[in-house]
């Protein structure tokens, strides 16, 4: 039953990301709800779950733009693994801790992604990083506590 609730949370976040996020975005600055659910579930269920979930969700997102198929899967699997190794150490109900962790995960993910995406073109790398990543990471961090609260409520009102 809990597996079903996790699937519901993931689908809900993906639907919100695909259908609603464009209406709450500012030019290229948009929150990444997939990152929120990845970090939350990786911390909750550990590095193996985080790796596999990150890989799967990354691959699904990559399939929308096949030119870089595999890149999102690679980055998200590493983020899922890294965050998952911190299982039990973070993520009490402090919204600032939640926001900070998601901000850091977002930034690290994008650094890895952009290094490959830009093919080490550092002009383009810094242009995208400064114009999109930093502000999108902040935006995602700010809305994360609310969405994590929602996710917890759906997955049986869990406290961890």
């Amino acid at each position, binding site marked *: 039953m809990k597996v079903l609730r996790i699937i519901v949370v993931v689908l809900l976040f993906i639907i919100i990301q695909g259908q609603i996020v464009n209406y709450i975005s500012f030019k290229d600055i948009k929150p990444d709800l997939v990152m929120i659910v990845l970090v939350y579930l990786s911390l909750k269920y550990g590095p193996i779950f985080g790796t596999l979930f990150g890989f799967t969700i990354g691959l*699904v997102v990559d399939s929308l733009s096949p030119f870089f198929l595999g890149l*999102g899967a690679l980055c998200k*699997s590493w983020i899922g693994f890294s965050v998952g190794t911190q299982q039990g150490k973070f993520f009490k109900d402090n919204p600032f801790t939640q926001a900070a962790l998601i901000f850091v995960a977002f930034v690290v993910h994008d650094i890895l992604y952009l290094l490959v995406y830009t093919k080490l073109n550092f002009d383009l790398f810094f242009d995208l990083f400064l114009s999109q990543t930093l502000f999108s990471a902040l935006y995602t961090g700010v809305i994360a506590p609310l969405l994590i609260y929602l996710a917890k409520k759906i997955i049986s009102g869990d406290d961890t």
Partner: protein
Amino acid sequence: MKKFIPLIITTFISITLLSLDITAKVKTSNFIGRVVFSIYYDVVEIVPRLSNLKAENQRLHKELTKLSYKNTQLKEAQLENIKLRKLLDFKQRTELEMTPAEVIGLDYGRFANSIVIDKGEDEGLSYNDPVVTYQGIVGKIIEALPTKSIVQPLYDRNCRVSVLIQKNRTFGILVWESGENLSLKGIPIYADVRENDLVISSGLGGIFPKGFNVGTVDYVTPEPTGLFLEVSVRPTADFSKLEHVLVITGAK
């Protein structure tokens, strides 16, 4: 040690996928899309549609696009006639088949932009089919699923369109780098390019038929090298209000 095994496996698979050629990547993405997105968009499309209004709307959009296209073609014919008087033979233009579609998803990724439409292989759509509105070119299909298609819009760094400036027939390549405008590359410094000049598809490259509106020149400045012009182009298609599009099939 056990926790590293999935990471090693997923890393290996990811790097393998990244190193595939584009045809294999498209096929793999297509497979994933068939499994995931067909179900996803069937779930999302739960609001019932007024089919009569929709059919009428689609018919009118199709008509409008044909008329707009014919208008551009007439102007093209005028300019082309001057050249053709000096030639001994020319080819006749063929009527284009168009399939109307509705936009059901936008911009899922943050660095790679895409548009999802509600028609796919079942309606005869296929990879590289051009996508337009009555205003101009929107992009091209990069994945055709059975009942949905993913469109690579002009606002994607991997999208390249061969174009020409209608007024003086100067060829160039249109790309998107950042911001609201597109960049027209390869225009020599001596070319007569001015604000509001119309940019149309050239027909080269075999994807976009010749004569479709792509954008209008916003501003022109010389490049630092002094050899080319930096031409900023505003797309004619309104991407902020993209609801219905037309897919050109049989244009190849």
